[in-house]
């Protein structure tokens, strides 16, 4: 009798926990279904290239300037934040006994949790206010600051995971530390490093808050130079969704579908990379 009661409680609890686990995954599917059902129908080659439509009248238009802007900003952020993050991560892994590395790591862990709007505010102070103009460089710097901790901490993990005996093998060849770390051991850690860069890429492509105070978001010009305002897809979604025009709402939905596709593609690629790891 008692045994039976235990069994029932056990089943019940398992059922509840399983239901909660499923529930936690519902939002991702709900969001994807929502975004694609509203936005997928607008996506076409022209949608990716064209200027946005005028608020009233005219054709369907597209997100060309915002897509170009996102590509420029992400490329710059990866170049700046990626290289700083990579070398920081390498330092954290190989000089983990130093106090500097320990403090740096602590600060980076704080930075991961940092409100990104504050990063945007900082970029505004140092790059927008002095130039008296919103500009692409400020946005790229803000995105770089946002992605540095993600890249650094993941690169650190990638290098930490290299077996010590391989490190000894590399240095026993009589090469300098840069050659050992970058020419020999980097390829042993390449999957982890690549994953780190992809995480940074996804983060840079999807962030909105650091861009609000830095790039402004041009609507009808593609790219006018790093010292000029520029647009980005998340910012376009924000601006157009808030507008009163039905046509711009449609463009925002289409842009949301494009952005989600980019993020999912990055996610799938990074999963494949991780899966490829052999024991």
């Amino acid at each position, binding site marked *: 009798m008692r045994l039976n009661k235990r069994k029932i409680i056990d089943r019940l609890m398992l059922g509840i926990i399983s239901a909660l686990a499923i529930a936690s995954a519902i939002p991702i599917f709900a969001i994807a279904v929502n975004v694609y059902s509203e936005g997928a129908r607008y996506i076409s080659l022209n949608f990716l290239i064209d200027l946005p439509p005028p608020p009233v009248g005219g054709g369907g238009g597209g997100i060309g300037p915002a897509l170009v802007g996102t590509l420029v900003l992400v490329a710059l952020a990866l170049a700046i934040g990626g290289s700083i993050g990579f070398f920081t991560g390498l330092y954290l892994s190989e*000089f983990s*006994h*130093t106090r500097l590395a320990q403090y740096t790591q602590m600060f980076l862990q704080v930075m991961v949790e940092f409100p990104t709007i504050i990063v945007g505010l900082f970029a505004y102070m140092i790059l927008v206010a002095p130039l008296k103009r919103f500009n692409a460089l400020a946005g790229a710097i803000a995105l770089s600051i946002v992605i540095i901790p993600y890249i650094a901490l993941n690169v650190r993990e990638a290098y930490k995971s290299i*077996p010590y*005996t*391989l*490190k*000894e*093998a*590399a*240095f*026993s*060849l*009589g*090469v*300098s530390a840069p*050659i050992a770390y970058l*020419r*020999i051991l980097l*390829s*042993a850690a*390449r999957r982890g490093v690549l994953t780190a860069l992809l995480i940074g890429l996804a983060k840079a492509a999807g962030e909105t808050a650091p861009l609000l105070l830095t790039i402004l978001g041009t609507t009808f010009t593609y790219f006018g130079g790093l010292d000029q305002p520029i647009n980005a897809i998340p910012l376009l979604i924000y601006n157009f969704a808030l507008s009163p025009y039905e046509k711009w709402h449609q463009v925002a939905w289409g842009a949301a579908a494009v952005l989600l596709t980019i993020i999912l593609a990055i996610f799938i690629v990074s999963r494949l990379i991780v899966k490829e790891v*052999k024991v």
Partner: protein
Amino acid sequence: MSWAIEVQNLNVWYGDKHIIKNVSFRVPKNVIFAIMGPSGCGKSTLLRAMNRLLDLNPHARVEGQVKINGINIYGDNVDVTWVRRQFGMVFQIPNPFPHLSIYENVALGPKLNGLVKDKSQLDELVKQALQKAYLWDEVKNDLRKPASMLSGGQQQRLCIARALALKPRIILMDEPTANLDPVASSKIEELLLELKEDYTIIIVTHNPQQAARVSDYVAFLYMGELIEIGETSTVFTRPSNILTEKYVLGRMG
């Protein structure tokens, strides 16, 4: 007599722990010199102090001198990469770079150190190294395949080829057969006897029988101290220290 390597008053600490205690010895050229002793006696540390691989450990501190060709490798103005290039090193766990091909594993060192002028020279050097390591015949048709496909014994011979390709004077071996089966082990031991024609070999082993089989000279290390050193035949037949006697008779470690 000119020596391959001279170790003078060498001390090593890990933090506060005194690992190697005032060890001195000299190794003649073209011999197999074995360092034997129970696990944890400091053998591997002593070996890594000889090519400054110990520098990788931020907690290690070294005092004393290690001389090759009269140059103290711990002296000022000595380039650590030059020091390491004088040695080839083979490790306890076969550790070829798993992501590289068999060819690349051997070619990497000479390529990065600029030992060869062109591709054909490199090909020749790789071939020679693999031949010297008794591996060429087994892999000559699979040079582009990943090193991870080789068996444990083959991987260890690949690591020996990798070490030989650097054209070192001295080969350091840290229990190179500890993780191999008896057949693969005896193949490596045969190889050692061949290699001493051209190189000086310093081998660390926790197996006194192996030291007896392969070495010309042997040092017995116990708790970081050098207990006894001499010609292998003498140390094994008439040990002068009671600890050595216990060890070689298998009553310790």
